């Protein structure tokens, strides 16, 4: 039985696919729900599984702006919400001082002026809620910011307004689509999780990854793409410090194409070794790939 919703999901999947993102139906369903319920979407998963990409493609298909807030340790409200442009304010004051014609009434007016929107520097969060068209707000790697910032963010996400003491409260002119990503270096608060829809993104399986490679690197021939994906999947099954993500797969594909390697087989193990730096990113992991292992993996593809 095909319900209306299932059709909508399939349509969204196709749209995402046209924009260059291969999404599982579950993710498409979550994106629809996110729009319906106006809730942020929290994405978790290992590095390199395409979390950030979701926000980008979402902005793409909605034909709207992507506003990105990259979180880091010590990120504070000033860097995330707004700041006054002090230099310009000072300049204005100095100019005012030398303007001898100014009367008392004028002065009060000018003073007002100094704390007006003209001197306000919008940082991503303020920008996101004061845009005319609802943009996509990507809050990337929120686990890197500290808990205090998370609390700040909660306030924004529940009321969609920011209060600026000198100016008053700025209400959202439009509600942005909020995508939050986390790598899980820090446990997020339950309050934040409660407000979000949740989606765990795992490493792609063979079919999905093949679809991604075919889409992103169409110049690789079908047979090579299959081999590449089989090879990477086998690498992921090994015990590595850092498993290759989708970005690594695509990098490696590009590297192979660049070296004109059109087929992965035992004979080409030597040349494959040369390209592995695109796939394996730590020294310890590199040690786990001597020539024999590469040859064995290549033969299995």
């Amino acid at each position: 039985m095909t319900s209306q919703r299932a059709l909508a999901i399939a349509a969204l999947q196709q749209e995402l696919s046209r924009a260059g993102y291969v999404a599982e139906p579950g993710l498409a369903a979550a994106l629809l729900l996110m729009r319906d319920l106006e809730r942020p979407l929290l994405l978790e998963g290992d590095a390199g599984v395409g979390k950030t990409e979701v926000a980008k493609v979402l902005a793409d298909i909605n034909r709207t702006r992507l506003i990105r807030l990259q979180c880091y340790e010590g990120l504070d409200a000033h860097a995330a919400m707004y700041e006054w442009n002090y230099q310009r304010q000072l300049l204005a004051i100095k100019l005012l001082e030398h303007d001898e014609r100014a009367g008392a009434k004028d002065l009060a007016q000018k003073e007002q002026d100094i704390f007006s929107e003209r001197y306000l520097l919008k940082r991503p969060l303020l920008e996101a809620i004061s845009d005319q068209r609802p943009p996509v707000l990507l809050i990337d790697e929120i686990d890197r910011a500290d808990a205090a910032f998370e609390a700040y963010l909660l306030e924004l996400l529940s009321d969609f307004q920011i209060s600026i003491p000198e100016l008053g409260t700025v209400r959202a002119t439009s509600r942005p689509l909020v995508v939050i990503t986390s790598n899980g270096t820090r446990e997020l608060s339950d309050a934040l999780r409660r407000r979000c829809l949740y989606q765990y993104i795992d490493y792609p399986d063979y079919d999905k990854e093949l679809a991604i490679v075919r889409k992103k690197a169409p110049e690789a021939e079908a047979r090579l793409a299959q081999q590449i994906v089989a090879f990477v999947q086998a690498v992921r099954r090994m015990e590595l410090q850092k498993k290759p993500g989708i970005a690594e797969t695509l990098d490696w594909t590009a590297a192979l194409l660049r070296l004109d390697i059109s087929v992965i087989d035992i004979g080409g193990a030597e040349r494959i070794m040369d390209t592995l730096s695109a796939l394996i990113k730590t020294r310890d992991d590199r040690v786990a790939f001597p020539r024999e292992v590469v040859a064995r993996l290549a033969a299995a593809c």
Partner: protein
Amino acid sequence: MLSASERLAQFPGFLRANGYGVGGGDAVQALRAAERSGVLDQDVLRWSLKALLCRRGDEWQRFDELFDAWFLPANRWQAPQRRDAGDGAQSAAHPGGEAEGERSGDEDVRPRRAASREETLSSADFSALTEREHALDIEALMRRLARQLKHIRLRREARARRGRRLDLPATIRRSVASGGTPFHLLWRNQRSVRPRLVLLIDVSRSMVLYSFFYLRLARALASELADVHSFIFHTRVTSVSQALHDPDPWRAQERLHLVAQGWAGGTRIGESLEQFNREHAPRVVHGRTAVIILSDGYDTGEPQQLSDALAQLRRRARRIVWINPLSSRQGYAPTCQGMQAALPHLDLLAPGGDLASLRAVLPQLIEALH
């Protein structure tokens, strides 16, 4: 038989019984979501509810199974059984009034004998203290120790603070009040940088007399310091941070017992550390992390494996400290193979067989953690 919408409305409750962090409002949200997605298409409903009701990775992994158990007709009768089992485990987790009574009884007498008891406690080897009644005193002592750890570090930070930095935006902002002349300079506070602590506690058979106390130390540390992550290991590593966070010490202990399967078995330190490196280290250990291993170093695995695993961990972490309960004994030398393999990678090997030696080693420990 429940109607479809009743069944749906009760689903969040079923998830809650299975340990999900869903709240009361979620039932309403679930119904709203189902309205949008329709209840006829099983998969669409599944995807929608999954996004709505899951909060974290492990819930995500278990969801499909629970969804099937609740919504698929064939398994209908499994659901209530499951819930019963969950409740049973929970009530077993608090051994109820008995522990409660013991505790309050202990509380009555504690103030009178606290001072003298503390002295004997702090110098008694942990292995000699197995009586349950000592537990709360030890908890208090451990807590004090943890507090000491915190204060010493803060004081050191205060003393080391040198060369304040001007906060230019704030200064200029302030100067707006005085017509742009910066009369008042504002300074930026040095961000206090606290190391993250990761505790790896050996709970194998040879450590059975000590691990209990180390777990208490971990618990006390976690309640005093913000960024503490605790793991136990014997032949494999398990995170116990969640269990230790339980505010009730007895229940925390029960939860630990549930977590630790194969508790007090043999030790394979190298293998455990390797597993830790693989599964937890990328997430938990960063450049400001101090890893504290609490173990006697008796390893039934390959010393080489231990050495490799420590070397790998060493590259990720800022400090590695090994606290060995045996080395406070007279005439102890770290001769066992495990310790020999570990030594080159350690910043500090400290004795920790009793509270007094832990306290004595504290300055060194803090020095090493800095």
